[in-house]
């Protein structure tokens, strides 16, 4: 909504946000119809070749099927070994640099003065006419002001208040899964639990909680942004729906506050309680941007780490034994799961000036992709990186949360959710056996699962 945002900001008090988004959608449709605006690339799946058969310059790690076909490890290893700062000059997302080693990624992430997060952190842009502004894609000082406004929601102090509630949600879900017969862990546990936790964090109507995960999926899966299977029409419809539902929720809480009722620990109550953010609804782009950021940030990431942990413990069954013998390893295992899975594969930057990096010259204006998923498997920094070790030394040093000013704001919440999940799993189950090949998400950004069939054995004691 970059083009439209000044208009929307001004007319916010007159026309509800969701109706304005619908208007923007119709405008874009009409524009594309009349002027034949830039067409959206359609991704057709074909099997990826063995990376050793490709010339270096032909390697394109923006291919949204690289994770789906589980070919990513060999592709990134070749780049790390032979061309750690790699230029792809004609991908469907335009030309871009790939940074694949741990130390180089750390350098780029730390230097926001050299590498800008604007206008967006995905390889591709957002759908035309629907560019929501969020602080993950802003540079300091604007970034700092906006982030500080919402940081308190997921600050450790607040999380302590929520721990018991989150634990009861996890217990409900785990108590309801079938024992001894195959089911999809993704659908039944990971999505269900993430939806319940998001509904809890937002104090969103509980019966509508599945919408939160659906909205987040749509927001992260448009083809022009990440190579996902979504559509632009769907993205607009969802943006309008999110704006409508969350405006309603805001007004409800605002009325409660005005009536002198006590506010809770949910996101909107905290925003209403904070001097800097209590009028955020009057800045609709900031409001919508923050909602979508927290929604997407809290969805794919935790969901796929919840599934990734089960997958990892099946590939490394000795670690499962180790875990059962010593549940105090859970916090360390949580960090190891987040490294091993790396649920978001990268963050993208744009060079603000010419920069020399590991023998290559990145030109001002070039796109630079920090492949966390590769840095987390860099043999130069991490011992036996493809091994999943729940007692790994320095497990916390992974790149999955990013480093520098954009470091994941919800990292403590993510760790707490995963810790609670595994504490509750160990109380109930003796084994979670993966009974079929996992199915993976089509995306170059979300490294996750669409299906993981498992069979559970309950504890006998």
């Amino acid at each position, binding site marked *: 909504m970059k083009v439209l945002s000044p208009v929307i900001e001004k007319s916010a008090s007159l026309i509800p946000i969701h109706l304005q988004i619908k208007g923007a959608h119709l405008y874009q449709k009409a524009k594309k119809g009349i002027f034949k605006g830039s067409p959206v690339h359609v991704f057709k799946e074909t099997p990826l070749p063995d990376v050793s058969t490709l010339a270096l310059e032909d390697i394109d790690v923006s291919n949204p099927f690289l994770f789906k076909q589980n070919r990513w490890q060999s592709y990134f290893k070749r780049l790390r070994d032979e061309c750690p700062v790699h230029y792809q000059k004609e991908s469907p997302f335009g030309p871009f640099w790939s940074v694949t080693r741990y130390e180089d990624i*750390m350098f780029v*992430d*730390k230097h926001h003065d050299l590498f800008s997060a604007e206008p967006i952190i995905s390889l591709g842009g957002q759908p035309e006419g629907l560019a929501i502004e969020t602080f993950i894609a802003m540079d*300091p000082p604007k970034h*700092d002001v906006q*982030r*500080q406004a919402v*940081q*308190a929601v997921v*600050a*450790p*102090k607040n999380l302590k208040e929520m721990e018991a509630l989150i634990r009861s949600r996890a217990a409900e879900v785990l108590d309801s899964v079938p024992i001894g017969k195959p089911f999809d862990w993704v659908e039944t546990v990971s999505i269900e639990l993430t939806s319940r936790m998001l509904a809890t964090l937002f104090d969103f109507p509980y019966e509508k909680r599945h919408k939160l995960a659906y909205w987040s999926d749509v927001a992260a899966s448009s083809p022009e942004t990440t190579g996902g299977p979504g559509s632009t029409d769907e993205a607009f419809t969802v943006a309008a729906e999110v704006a409508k539902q969350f405006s309603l929720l805001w007004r409800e809480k605002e009325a409660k506050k005005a009536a002198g009722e006590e506010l809770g620990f949910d996101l909107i109550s905290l925003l209403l309680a904070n001097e800097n953010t209590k009028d955020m609804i009057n800045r609709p782009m900031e409001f919508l941007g923050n909602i979508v950021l927290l929604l997407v940030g809290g969805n794919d990431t935790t969901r796929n780490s919840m599934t990734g942990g089960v997958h990892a413990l099946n590939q490394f069954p000795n670690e499962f034994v180790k875990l059962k013998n010593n549940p105090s390893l859970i916090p360390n295992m949580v960090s190891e799961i987040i490294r091993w899975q790396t649920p978001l594969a990268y963050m993208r930057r744009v060079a603000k000036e010419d920069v020399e990096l590991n023998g290559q010259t990145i030109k001002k204006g070039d796109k630079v992709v920090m492949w966390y998923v590769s840095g987390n498997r860099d043999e130069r920094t991490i011992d036996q990186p493809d091994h999943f070790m729940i007692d790994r030394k*320095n497990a*916390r*040093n992974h790149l999955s*949360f990013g*480093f*520098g*000013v954009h*470091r994941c704001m919800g*990292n*403590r919440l993510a760790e707490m959710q995963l810790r609670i999940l595994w504490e509750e799993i160990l109380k109930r189950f003796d084994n979670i056996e993966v009974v079929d090949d996992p199915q993976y998400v089509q995306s170059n950004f979300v490294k996750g699962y669409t299906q993981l069939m498992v069979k559970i054995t309950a504890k006998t004691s």
Partner: protein
Amino acid sequence: MGNITFIEHNGTQHTVDIEEGKSLMETAMDNGIPGIDADCGGACACGTCHVIVDNNWIGTTGSSTEDENQMLDMNPEKVGTSRLSCQIPMSETMGGMVIRLPEFQM
């Protein structure tokens, strides 16, 4: 050889020897002081080795740098003498120094 004292948020005290050449963060990690995570391993890039230097010692350690403030400014527990301990090199002049740990790292 001098030593320094870490005081956890709950009041528990830990006294450890100074090892010149190491950072305060490394000293804490090597001695298993709870409450310091050091997620970035000492690169001043995560903010999870936050400590609060005793007022009497901030002259010796110096105040937080601009680089540190980029990470510290996002932390609601930040106070005037907050530092990232990975950015404080240890020296013998710090014998008797008192360091307080925040309730949370984030």
